[in-house]
């Protein structure tokens, strides 16, 4: 019985862990480079500077 219930908890855990990892990784790498300039300015210097 406990093995079965543990496997169900495992299923839920895997899904939640994946979603959390996904959001965490995008946030961790995305937020530091997000700035007001990036959002509002046009690209400059052949799209190597400026914003979107």
């Amino acid at each position, binding site marked *: *019985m406990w093995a*079965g*219930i543990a*496997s*169900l*908890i*495992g*299923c*839920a855990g*895997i*899904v*939640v862990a*994946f*979603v*959390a*990892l*996904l*959001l965490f*990784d*995008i946030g961790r790498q995305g937020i530091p480079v997000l700035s007001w300039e990036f959002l509002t300015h046009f690209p400059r210097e052949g799209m190597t500077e400026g914003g979107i």
Partner: protein
Amino acid sequence: MTWTKETDEKKPLLLEFLFRKIVGKRCFGGYCLAGGDFLSSWKAFDDIGLAAFLSSDIWNPSAFEESSYGIGSLQVGTGLTTLGAIAIAAPLGIGMAFFLSEIAPIALRNAMKPLVELLAAVPSVVLGFVSIVLVGPFLASAFGLPNGLNALNGCILLAFMALPTVVSVAEDVTQAVPQAYKEASYALGANRWETLTRVTLPACYSGLISAAMLGVGRAVGETMTVLMATGNANAFPSGFFSSVRTLTATIAIEMGEVPTATTHYYALFACALVLFILTLAVNVVAERIATRLRKRGQ
């Protein structure tokens, strides 16, 4: 009193009436699209031959000598990623649905459900991005591959795209099982796990199949994630570790660059028709099972 209330409710809303008139019986627009698609595909079948189109596995529209339009390897690519995705998503999703509806305390359930539904709100291109920067390198290092962009990568990402559908449908059908069944089971001395596997599971079996089929329907038509995750090698795949190309990805890549009204152009319409028939079949089967379940429930 109830009688007057009923007559009030039967008045059809103007908006609803108009909507029914315009949309017609059932998905009129869908029929129009499919009809137009079929007419265009017909020209491709005329040039290539239906048997050659479906069975040949060489898709080389821009060959120097003679172009060939066979979607065999593309079909295998679509089949491989979809089957792999559902092999991951069905057990995970159904397991999670059982956990949410039978085991988890209400506070935990209220915290976990939005997280899964959040997955449905993530744009598919973001999942494709994750497949390249996160899942790909992980697969490459875990299995010792030169790169991680292969069918398995596509399967994993597609599985997580299908999961919100599978989990919410599976949870609904699990909760639709009458409480009296479970109470009777507990009264006979069965524990939680025995009640779940011997009473609840058989009672909602067809609903769970329907949940998995709806997940398949979601996975078959997915384009951007598989386009980014699977590597798009135009060759017959040899397994989950080889790079594959799907029907959807082929249409997405080539439609923008193909000269209008050529065999190649019509062949892409034919790909769309095959895809349409595939998703229609999956959805009809899922709907049938769900309807049968609903009738039996009444």
